C-alpha cells in the first residue's frame, strides 16, 4: 500500500510560481483562492541577509486536525494512499477544518459552498502521473512519491538529506518534508 508524500528541496526553489499557476489550472481553483503558495522570507539587515523560499500546501498529515474537526465526516484520511481528502457532497461549508488546519491550507469554494484544498492531484496520481505542481516544477524542487518504496525519489531525498516538517510541535505528523540548506555531512 503506497504512502504518498512530498519533499520540497528548498535549495532548488526560485519562487517562479509555475507550481502555483499549474495547480490552479489543473484543479480549476477559483479566482483568489490557492491550494499552494510560495512564501518568501528574508531575515537580517542589509547586507547580511538570508532568504528562505518555502512552498506551502496541504501537509496530508497522519494526525490530521481537519479530519478530527469535521462534523460531517466529509474530510477523511484515505486508507489506501494516506492522502487527506474531502467528500464534497458531505461538506456543508462550516469552516471547522479551515480553522483547525494549522497550515492555512484550506479555503471555502464560495460559489459551491464546500471546503477545498490540495489533493496531491489524486486524479493524476491514479493515472501514474505526478501532481501538476511537481510535473512543472522548474527547479525540480518538488519531489513526490511513495515513502514505502525505498527506491522512490522521496525516500532517496529523505535518506540523503536532513529534512524538517512545518510546525512539528503541532503534532500533526505532516507528509510534506522540507530540505532546507545542508545535506548530511559526507
Amino acid at each position, binding site marked *: 500500500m503506497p504512502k504518498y508524500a512530498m519533499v520540497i528541496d528548498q*535549495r532548488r526553489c526560485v519562487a517562479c510560481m509555475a507550481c502555483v*499557476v499549474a495547480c490552479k*489550472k489543473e484543479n*480549476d481553483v477559483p479566482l483568489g483562492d490557492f491550494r499552494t503558495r510560495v512564501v518568501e522570507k*528574508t531575515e*537580517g539587515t*542589509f547586507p547580511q*541577509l*538570508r532568504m528562505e523560499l518555502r512552498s506551502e500546501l496541504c501537509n496530508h498529515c497522519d494526525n490530521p486536525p481537519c479530519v478530527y474537526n469535521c462534523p460531517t465526516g466529509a474530510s477523511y484520511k484515505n486508507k489506501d494512499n494516506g492522502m487527506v481528502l474531502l467528500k464534497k457532497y458531505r461538506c456543508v461549508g462550516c469552516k471547522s477544518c479551515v480553522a483547525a488546519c494549522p497550515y492555512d491550507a484550506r479555503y471555502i469554494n464560495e460559489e459551491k459552498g464546500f471546503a477545498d484544498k490540495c489533493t496531491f492531484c489524486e486524479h493524476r496520481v491514479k493515472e501514474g502521473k505526478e501532481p501538476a505542481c511537481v510535473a512543472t516544477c522548474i527547479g525540480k524542487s518538488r519531489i513526490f512519491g511513495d515513502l514505502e518504496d525505498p527506491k522512490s525519489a522521496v525516500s532517496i531525498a529523505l535518506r540523503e538529506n536532513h529534512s524538517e516538517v512545518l510546525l512539528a510541535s503541532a503534532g500533526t505528523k505532516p507528509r510534506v518534508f522540507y530540505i532546507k540548506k545542508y545535506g548530511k555531512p559526507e
Partner: protein
Amino acid sequence: MTKTISRRSFLKITGGTTAGLSLAATLPDRFLLWAEEQGMLKATYTPTFCEICFWKCGVMAKTINGRVVKLEGNLAHAGSRGKLCGRGNGGAGLLYDPNRLKTPLINVGARGEGKYRKASWDEALNVVAEKMTKIKEKYGPESMALFTHGTPTDHFLPLIQAYGSQNVGMPSFAQCRGPRDVGLELTFGEGIGSPERVDLANSKVVVLLGSHLGENMHNSQVQDFCDGIARGAKLVVVDPRFSVAAGKAHTWLPIRPATDLALILAWINVIVSEGLYDKAYIDSYAVGFNELAAAVKEYTPDWAAVETDIPAGKIIETARLMAKNAPAVCVHPGRHATWHGDDVQRSRAIGILAALLGSWGREGGLYLATTASFPKGESKPFPTPARDALNLGPYPFAGGEGVTQVIRSATITGNPYPIKGWMVTGTNLMKAVPNQKETIEAIKKLDLLVVVDVMPFDTAMMADVILPECSYLERHDALAVGKGKSLTVSLRQPVVEPRFESKPGWWIAKELGKRLGLAEYFPWNTLEDKIKSQCAAWGVNYNELKQKGSLTVPNTSNPYITPLNQPTFKTKSGKIELASSELKEKGFDAVPRYTKHPQPPAGEFRLIYGRSAVHTFSRTTNNPELNELYSENEVWLNAKKAAELGISNGAKVRLENQDGAVSNAVRAKVTERIREDCVYLVHGFGTNSKELSRAFARGADDQGLITRFAVDPICGSTGMRVNFVRIKKEGLDA
C-alpha cells in the same frame, strides 16, 4: 450554470451536434474538468510552442471539447523539457482574456485619442494598403518602417522588405541584448545565442552580473541553474538588490550601480597579475594578451573597491575562486544589457574574462553551438532600396535588427529622409523604448500608424488602424529552428480556432501583400503548406513533427572543445580578440576602459528595473491568470532610507525623475533587500490603455521615468539605468 445541467442533459447536448459542441465550448473549465474525470469527455493534447516570452518553450495544450483547459510542457522540447514556467502555465489567460482585440478597428478621433470604429478585414486592409501605396508614391518605400518582436517578425519583415524598405527596428537590439551580442561578436566572432549557450548545469562557479535568474524566468536556463546549484556550484551574484538568485548565492556582492565594469576589470587584473589565466588556451586561441595586460594594470582591486563599494578582499577572493575552478566557470553574459551606455565594452570585458578562464567551448562554461543547419531555401529576392537604410544610424556596429530610436529621430526630423509610416507588430513601443514623449512626437508626424497585436496595449491604442492578430494558441507560425547543443525544429500550430474575428499574422501579411501587389512573395495558400514544403526540403517528417511538436536532429551536438572539435572564431584575426582590432580601427578602445558614471545626488535614487517571474515585458499584466499573482508593481526602497523619509511599507508614493516626469501612485516595498542609493521597479506596469481592464493604471511605469538614456556609441543601444528619482509621499491612502 453548472448547477443547472444534470449529467444526463449534458450528455444530450454534447451528443455530436454542432449546437451542442458550441455550447460545451462555453462551459466553465471546472465543469469540463469534472466531466473529463467522470469519463464523459476525452481530453486531447496538441503540441505547439509558447509565445508568452521569447524562450519559445514546447507546449502540450490540453483541450476538452474545444476549450484549452491546461498547458503543460512538452518533454520532447529542449527549451521546456516537459515543464512550463508560471507564465507559460497561464498562457490560456491570453487566449480567453475578454479584453482582447476582437475586430479590425479604424481610428475616428485624433491620433492617440483611442476612438475607434469596427471595420471589416477587407476595409481595414484596404485602408492600410492604400496609405502604404501613397507613402511609397510620395516619399519612396524606405519611408515606411517596421517595428517588430517575436514570431510576427517572420511574416511582416518579408512584407516590408518586399515593399521596398529595409528600415526595421527591433527593441530586442537597442533596448535589450544588442550590446551583449556585439561585445561577444567583437571578442569571439559570434554571440551567445538565444537561448544562451550557458552550461550552468555543469558549472562549478556561476557568476551573475545583474541577471536575476528565477525572477527572470527563462525556462531551461533556470532548470540548468537549479541543477548547477544542487550539484554544488558556487554562486557569485553581483546585484545592488538581494534578488532571488542572490538569496541562493555563496557570495553576494551588492555593487554600487553603474560600476560593474570596474569590478570585471579588477577581476581581470587579479587573474592576469597573479598569472591565474589559462595560458595554453590563451596561447592557442587568443590574440592581444599583452595589450590587455598593460591596459588593466591600473584597475587594481583597491581602486575597484572605491568605485564599486565592494571590499578589495572580496574582489580578490572571487577572482581566485573563478580561476581555481576554471574552465568550468560560467560568467553569465546576461540578456538585457542596455544599462549605462558603455555596454558593449562591459560585455567585451565579460567575454575577455571568460576567455582568460578558458571557459568558451568548455564544459560548465559557455558551450559551442551546433554547426549543423538546415539548407537555405530559395525565395524571390527583395528589391534593392533606392536609398540606404537609415536604421543603423551613425553606429558602426549596429546590428541587423536595427536601432529603434534612430528611426524615431528620423521620423521627427525628416533626416536623412522622412519616415511617414510605421507598422508595429508584436511590440509595445511605448513601454519598450525610452523617452515616451519622443515616441509620441514621432507618431504625430506619421501619415500611417498600423499596429498588429493580440491585446489593446498602449501603442495599439495610438494607431490609425489596429489589426487583431489571434493568440499563439490559435495560429501557425514559422518553424522555430533551435541551435543550442543540438539542431532542433519546433512547430507552432493552432490548438483551437481563432476567437472573434482575429486572424493569424501570416494571413494578415499575405493579405496586405496581395493588396500591395506583392502576392508573388507569398507563393502558398496557407502557412501550413509552406511549412510542409520546408519540412520536405529539410528532410523533416512533417507528420512526426505535427505529432511531437519538436524534433532534435541526431548527432548534431558537439558542445565542447576537444582535439578533434576545434572552435572557429569569426573575428578579423580568426582568434579570440582580447584587444579588438575592429574597435581600434573605428576609433574605440581596443581593451575596455572604465568610464565613471554620475551617481545620484543626495535625496535621489537611481532607478533600476527588472522582471517578475510571472510577467513578460508589459504584455502579461492584463492576463487574468498572471494578474492574479502580481497585479501591480511596488517600488523597492531600502528600509533605512524609508525610515528617514517617513515612508512605511505599503504606503503609496510617486516617483519623480530629474526631468520632472512623475509616475502613477505606487506602493512602497520597504525592504532590506536593496542598497540605499537605488530603487527598483518591476518593468511593464502602469499601462495607459483603458481597454486593459485589469492592468489600467495599476502600478508605476518605469519607462515613463526613463526620459534620459545613454547611447552606446559603438552599437547605438540605449542605456536605461541612468535616471534618478525622488520619492514623493502620497496623501493618506484611501
